[in-house]
């Protein structure tokens, strides 16, 4: 990847929204003045961004394509493939593009089941009530973009914090694609841990007074910090809320199983035993 700093030519960039919530685009905007400066100093040049400018179609070669959202329709798939052809590097921005995101959680129910709830009169095999005139076909599964195209960089998070996107843009202008990597959210969480397992698992609505400086898991609340890729600065636990794993599984996990968090596993077992008694 050529570095903008050595060539002096502005990096041509496009942002593409597939099936997502726009949160990743908003986080990109939250980069704020640093983003404005990159544009003003002609370090980057935005060639296409449906949410920000009026260019209806990307028709030229670009250096970097930032993709938000998963692939859920025929249209998502086509436009992703077309734009990938034009781009030197593809970046999956956010957990939808990286892993599928919320839409992919619904994969377990089957698309027909999901659509039946939206348009209640449709039957399983013949989705007659789902509007279809001139509309793209909806795929059975919501998929991350790497099912369809080769991805060069992954920037997970729901959405990735704007600090992360800022660092990413700055790195890419320098010709680098990677930057700091934190193994897990626990690694950057300031909450104190004693290593004890909680005696039982509780629902957060059962405990109104959580100790703010103590690990949530040790207080019986399930927190995904230990399995989740770090980088966000453990924002949720810092605000007293458990990590819900929005950045995806930590790369340090060998396999994803409850044995990765033995204290949760132990507490779950003891909670179940107590209930069964």
């Amino acid at each position: 990847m050529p570095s903008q700093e050595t060539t002096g030519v502005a990096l041509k960039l496009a942002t593409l929204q597939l099936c997502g919530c726009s949160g990743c685009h908003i986080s990109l905007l939250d980069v704020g003045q640093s983003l404005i400066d990159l544009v003003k100093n002609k370090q980057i040049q935005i060639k296409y961004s449906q949410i920000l400018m009026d260019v209806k179609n990307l028709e030229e070669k670009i250096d970097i394509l930032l993709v938000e959202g998963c692939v859920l329709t025929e249209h998502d798939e086509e436009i992703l493939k077309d734009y990938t052809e034009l781009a030197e590097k593809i970046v999956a921005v956010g957990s939808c593009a990286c892993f599928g995101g919320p839409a992919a959680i619904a994969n377990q129910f089957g698309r027909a089941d999901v659509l039946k709830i939206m348009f209640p009169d449709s039957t399983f095999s013949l989705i007659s009530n789902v509007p279809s005139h001139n509309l793209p076909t909806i795929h059975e599964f919501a998929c991350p973009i790497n099912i369809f195209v080769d991805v060069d960089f992954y920037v997970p998070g729901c959405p990735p914090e704007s600090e992360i996107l800022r660092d990413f843009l700055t790195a890419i202008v320098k010709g680098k694609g990677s930057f700091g990597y934190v193994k897990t959210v626990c690694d950057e969480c300031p909450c104190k841990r004693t290593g004890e397992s909680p005696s039982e698992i509780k629902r957060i609505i059962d405990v109104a007074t959580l100790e703010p400086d103590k690990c949530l898991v040790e207080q019986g609340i399930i927190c995904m910090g230990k399995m989740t890729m770090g980088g966000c600065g453990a924002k949720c636990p810092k605000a007293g809320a458990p990590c819900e794993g929005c950045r995806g599984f930590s790369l340090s996990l060998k396999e994803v199983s409850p044995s990765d968090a033995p204290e949760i596993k132990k507490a779950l077992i003891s909670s179940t035993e107590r209930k069964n008694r």
Partner: protein
Amino acid sequence: MTKTVYIDPATRVEGHAKLNIQFNDAGAFEKVEFQCYEPPRGFERLFIGMIGEEVPRLAAKICGICYSAHCVAAVQAIENAWGVEPPEDAIKLRELMLLANLLQSHILHFTFLAMPDFLCDNPQEKNFVGLLNKHKELVEASVKLRAVGQKLTEILGGRQIHPATVVPGGMTKSLNKDEVEKITANINEAKVLVETLKNCAEKVMEAKASLLEKFGKIDSHFLCLRQKQHLTLCNADLELSTRDGRIIVMKPEKYSKLVRERVVDYSFIKQPYLDETGLEDGLIRVGPLARVNRCEWNNKLLRKFDKAFPRPSQSTLAYNIARTIEIEECLKRIEEVINDGVGKHVRETVKPREGHGVGIVEAPRGLLFHCYSTDRQGIVTEANVIAPTTQNALAIEKSAEAAARERFAGKAYERITRDDLDSIEMVVRAYDPCLSCSVHLVRIKRGL
């Protein structure tokens, strides 16, 4: 042969939509279809089977622009189902979250999405980069103002986007002294910055008075939460103002009795309308114009608005000015709540029970409803979301049609220009449509 001109995709709007402008055999303009091709992501299905306390955080992810509105409406609905009253201070924190969210969303729309239409001439320059060359001050003030909104959301919700702190029974954190000071400092800074936006709105109002008043104008009913002495985003009655000037106040739960919806085969958005008057006369609108039409705030820009668009105003493009008025009122209200003080008691334990609940807030784009049923353990058995853009869907289409009718009067299909099409898009943009949200509505059932 009938002909169709497509505006595809609609740009400077959130999500995926196009406008299909149709002409008859003789080449004369016929109608507009507002086609949303954003697929439903399936949230209504996802919620089913979840424990109620997990719903607000997932609900936020319905929309990356009005996350806090979804989060708060969802938690209200769950609490309503369980018969729970959160502590006073938690209600204050949630109101602050809604206000902070409105601040960032409105500024995003006003400066980055709407103003290029009014301040930039060259089509290639109608975006924030073009604006940056000519109106650097406006862009830089807006960047800072948006950052204020996001900083507040981060303080209140733990994160700038998709907040984490909202749980049934209250909030996981309150505000400490440092945070209150930070908020106050930010608001003080914002109060200065907002002048740039107000000046800009005033200038646009003067320079384009008749365009703003007339273009894309339609005749509709309006729905909003009853506005108090301050910008009111939650905890208020529902107010319907009809086209013939009646004001009807009711409990928000009555919404389902008011509207019917139609499904059109060309769009994933359904189109609600006022049942009482039927489809033809039943257009409803929600959002900044609906709220400003019914407010009595002490606001200088509002007095100018009154002169330009006598209330109740039906001018579609006046939405843009209404938004600016709200930005200022929003800052005032944040200050009021903060000065009033937020205490430390922000959460109580909660016992789930079998029930059905409704949550209603004013999102930046208008009324937002969340409804859930849960079983005895608090597991969701039914979910329903009605987003503001859905309620505006029919009005968006009709406004675009009104604009097209004016532009294409006596003009043949062959003579359409880019400028014509851009102007129609500008009318759609006035609603600040948010399409990711809008397709997540489900059915409007009698008795919600």
